[in-house]
Every structure is written in structure tokens, then in C-alpha cells.
């Protein structure tokens, strides 16, 4: 999991968020592993982005307005 990843600007940018937020609690090895995981997350996101959806494709998520019962 801690093999160095190839340069990828999106991965670098997103990994920087992680490093900025949590870098002070992490070792070099842990940061390397997190970069690898971020790279995998970016690859997964790209797979999702490749699928085109229509305006009518809503999130499949439960939502209902709330009103407290008297």
C-alpha cells in the first residue's frame, strides 16, 4: 500500500487537503499510504465521472420534509 504513486495533479491536490488537516499526527510512511489511497479514490471517482447521466437521474436517497407531531 505504501508504494510511491506516479504524479497526478488531482491526487496531489486532494492529498494536500489530507496532509494539511492531519499531517502533524502522521508519520512519513502513513502519509505515503494515504497518498496511495487518495490516488485509488481519484481513480474510483474517474470511473464514476465517465458515466453520463441525465438531468432526471436523481440521487437515490431518502428525504422527507419534517414536521413535529403536536
Amino acid at each position, binding site marked *: 500500500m505504501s508504494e510511491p504513486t506516479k504524479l497526478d495533479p488531482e491526487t496531489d491536490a486532494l492529498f494536500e487537503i489530507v496532509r494539511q488537516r492531519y499531517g502533524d*499526527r502522521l508519520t512519513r510512511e502513513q502519509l505515503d499510504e494515504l497518498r496511495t489511497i487518495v490516488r485509488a479514490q481519484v481513480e474510483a471517482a474517474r470511473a*464514476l465521472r465517465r458515466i453520463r*447521466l441525465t438531468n432526471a437521474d436523481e440521487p437515490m436517497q431518502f428525504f422527507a420534509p419534517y414536521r413535529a407531531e403536536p
Partner: protein
Amino acid sequence: MKADVLFTPLRELGGLLKTRKLLPVELAELYLDRLERLGPKYNAVVTVMREHALSQARRAEGEIAAGRYRGPLHGIPYGAKDLLATAGAPTTWGAAPYKDQRFDFDATVIRKLEEAGAVLVAKLAMIELAGGMGYRQPTASFTGPCINPWDANAWTGGSSSGSGAAVAAGLVPFAIGSETWGSILSPAGYCGLAGLRPTYGRVSRHGAMALCWTLDKLGPLAQTADDCGLVLVAMAGRDPKDPTASDRPYRYAAADRTGFRFGVITNVTDGCEVAVAENFTRSLGVLRKMGTVEEVTLPDLPYEQITRTILQVEAASAFEDLIESGGIVGLTAPEDRHTPYARDAILAKDYLKAVRLRGVMAREIDRVLSRYDALVAPGRINEAPVLGQEFRSAISATAKDVMGAVGNGAGLPAVCVPNGVGARGLPTSIQFMGRAWEENSILAAARAYQSLTDWHTRHPKLG
């Protein structure tokens, strides 16, 4: 009585209790003794509920004697994964930071099983936080790795690890587990049990630890598919405390049927161990005696990325405080102490894309499943992993699991039952996955399969 009732199917066990050939208190005592004596051998138990169990058993005994029989679970002991709130005992979520956590109420499923007359004898071990932090090894629990009753060097699977170990070792007749992605089918498959993942919303999640609000399901692990149906009917139903719990009525249809239609996804055994693939091929031969088997190709969608993205984001949000505070450093698995930080880098738009694609996935798979009673596949790609080693997992993208991604992402029911042994002599399994709300169809298929095979009658050698 005594040890000869171990591994008795629930319908038969219930019959013995109903006719008072067996008494609830003596049955509870049998299992309490086994939990206390053998539970530590498998790291399967967090809390033995002796006093609580004997109280429930005495009540059941009195009610049955008085002719107030509640049904097939009346007087039958069971264990609950330790993510279900129970008043009067800790609810640890398998994680050291929560080892002293207590709730002053019972989860809805605990309450419903009590109403059915079942006797809660133990809270069972589990992977910390149901595996939602990305664990890669069996040791990821503050109670230690659950040991497979079939082989002391093998893991039970997870995250409902203690539920698998306890049923397989005859420490409880059935157990409740939870599945977000694989956590019922994995321990059931590795331990040679029947495990049922109900349709999302079939069972109330109130009082269960939330890992992923749109993926979490509760279901039984037991000896047979019929057992699972008997437990499900007691667990199912609407609940005002869980808005996702469906008001669709569930009635278990236990009648035999024939003429099944099965689909098998093309190349579904790719990546499986040789023995798993061979056993699955043999199972298809059995299924052809029950009906038709057709190969089916799924539309090309990023199934695993959809479900994995939803899981990672929802779990990170559910445990935002623990992660951001650095409290994850108190978890047991080294990888759980830092890898969740990476999820801050998943963009909201990508998460929503996954949730939108989930709708496409759900419609496509329902279109496919409408032609079949079930899609079938190996329950697991391998025999139980060896203790002390990292394992492969679809959640960490180190193994393929299209059936798990589709089934959990779309909230579909599945049941797995044993179908052979692998190269190391450990159980392998077959899973039947159906359309939403079609638990009865997949249970009928699994029961028919078990009527033609005897794998479910084999049990590990016990101490």
C-alpha cells in the same frame, strides 16, 4: 437433552420446546455454559447475559406451560452482534474507544425478538466499528481475532465475526449480525452457516450502530435457510423510530416449491480459489435439478466504485468526531488509526454521482433479476483467511465482489449456505441474491438446495 440438541434446526428445536420435551431454562443453561466455557477459545463473546437470559427463559417456560405459546422462537437462545443497543449491558461496537459504552434502551430488533419469546444469552464479538475504517486483518477488534471453529488457524470472517463463530461452535442456535458490505455473508460463508442479508429497510436499524445509513442491514446467521426465515419474520417490520424501515408486511413462506430460474453472471468465478470455483460448478449441477440456470451479462457500470464511494463517505461522516479528534488512534488495527483520513479527499460531487448512479444500478439489476428467482454466485471467493495475515477485500479494492457491490449498493436480499469444502478443509458457500423484498424466493431456493445436499449437516469438531 444436553449436547445432542446442539445444531438442531430452529423449527425442530421450537417443536421440542412447544411440546415441553425441552425446557427453556435448561436450554438456556446449556448455551450459557458453553458461552462461558468455550466462548473465550474463539474470542467470540463480549458479554454473557446470564441473569438476563435466565430471567427471559423462566418467563418463556411459564408462558409455554400456561399455553401462551408465542411461536417458533419462543424459548430459543440467541446472540446479538455487539453493535445492537441492549439496556443492562455494554454495547462496545467492537472498538476500544467504546468498550464501556452503555445505552438505556434496547434496539428495536432486540425488542422484537423478545416479543417473539427468544432468549438473549450473549453480546457477540465483532470487527471494530463493523469494519468501516478500512481494516485489512482479522485482529481488528478489541476482543481479539475471532477464531474459526473449523480451524484454529483460520479467521471467521467479519465483521459479524462472533456471530459466525458462536453459531458454528454451537454456542448459540442463531445470532444476529449486520451487513454494510459482506459482514453477514462473509462469516456465514467462512463458518459453514446460513446467513441472510435482508432487503434494505426490511428490518429496523434503530439502536444499531450506524456505519452507513443507506447500506446497513441487520439479519440472522443460523444453521439452515429455514432457520433464517423463521428469525427474519420475527425481526421484520415497520418502526416509527427508523424512517427507512418499510411498512411492507413480511410473512415467511416456508412451503417447498420447484421450477426455479437462476442466473449466473458471466465470469463470476474469476478470482476465486480453484476449489471454490469447482464447488460452485458442482452446485450449478444441483441447481439444474431444481430448475434452469442461465448465464447473464450485467450492464457495464462501475458497481464496486459506486458502493465503495458511498460506504467510505458515509462511514467517515458517521464517525466524523472520532476521526477528526484523532480518537481513531485508540482502535486496534494499525490501518484503522490513520487510513480514514484519506476520505476527506473524496469530493461531494463524486459522492453524489455515486448516489445518482446507484439509482441506475438499482434499475438495471432489477431489470435483470425480474427474469430470475435469484442470481447465484460463490458466497466468498476463498476459504477463510489465515489468522495473522492481511486478507483481500472488495472494500479496500484488493478483491473483486460485483455481487456484493450490487447487492449492498442496491439494497437487495441474499442468502448464503455451505456448498462444499476447500483445499484446507474449510467450508465454501453459494449465495442466492434476489429482487428487493423477495426474501421468500431466495430462501425457497436455498432450502431446496439444502434439501438436495448435506453440507449444512456437517459441523466442526468441538471441545
